[in-house]
């Protein structure tokens, strides 16, 4: 909590909601989600190293309803964080700060992240024969 009751600068309540701020918030949220998702990475690698029985449990979890929902969420989070991360790296190099360009790259990130997620799950369902 703030240690003194200081006046605050104009904040979320006063600004119009915009694409750029939404994408920025989603970038952080997907980053945190992916950090949590490393739990599955650890589980999968340890299980694969341990033996068929442990690996079977991880496979069963990934194939369950909760597992599929989590994997779908994490796959989109990865696609989004990757695409928007490249956008951030472009900004770090000094490119793309114009407002019009920030909007073009922003919508591009949204579109590409959705398309790559659909492509990934297209591959998954083509191999497993449906959800």
């Amino acid at each position, binding site marked *: 909590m703030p240690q003194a009751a200081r006046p605050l600068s104009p904040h979320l309540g006063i600004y119009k909601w915009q694409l750029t701020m939404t994408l920025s918030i989603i970038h952080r949220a997907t*980053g945190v989600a992916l*950090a949590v998702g*490393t739990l599955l990475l650890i589980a999968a*690698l340890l299980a*694969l190293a341990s033996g068929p029985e442990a690996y079977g449990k991880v496979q069963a979890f990934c194939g369950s309803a909760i597992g599929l929902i989590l994997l779908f969420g994490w796959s989109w989070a*990865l696609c989004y964080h990757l695409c928007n991360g490249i956008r*951030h790296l472009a900004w770090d190099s000094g490119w793309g700060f114009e407002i019009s360009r920030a909007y073009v790259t922003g919508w591009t990130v949204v579109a590409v992240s959705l398309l790559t997620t659909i492509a990934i799950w297209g591959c998954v369902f083509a*191999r497993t024969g449906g959800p």
Partner: protein
Amino acid sequence: MSADLQTPLKRVRGLGSAKDGTHHFVIQRLTALALIPLSIWVVFLALTLMRADYAQARAIVHQPFAALWLAAFVIAAFWHAQLGMQVVIEDYVHTRWLEITAQVAVKFFCFIGALACVLAIVRMALS
């Protein structure tokens, strides 16, 4: 001109620049850059492992280059995650003891997570 703008009290409390902020920025970008090809590769690996049984999955990870890229991905991913979570905690957790606890917990988790994954990969690569 070398006027010190910090008050003596601020210096005693250890506030102000610790002179290593740039290091965090640079490593976050370097790991991000490494993770672009590595994470795309891991997605393809995951899709390949999906249709493999246990023995085939072990054989795939046993390949030298698969083990190399997977270990590189794991190290870069946990490092990047730690740096990112550090900033998120710094920005949103304002209760001091909770902030310190969260920072330490994230660092320990990322270190143990990376170590566990690398040990598992090394074990599979060498067996």
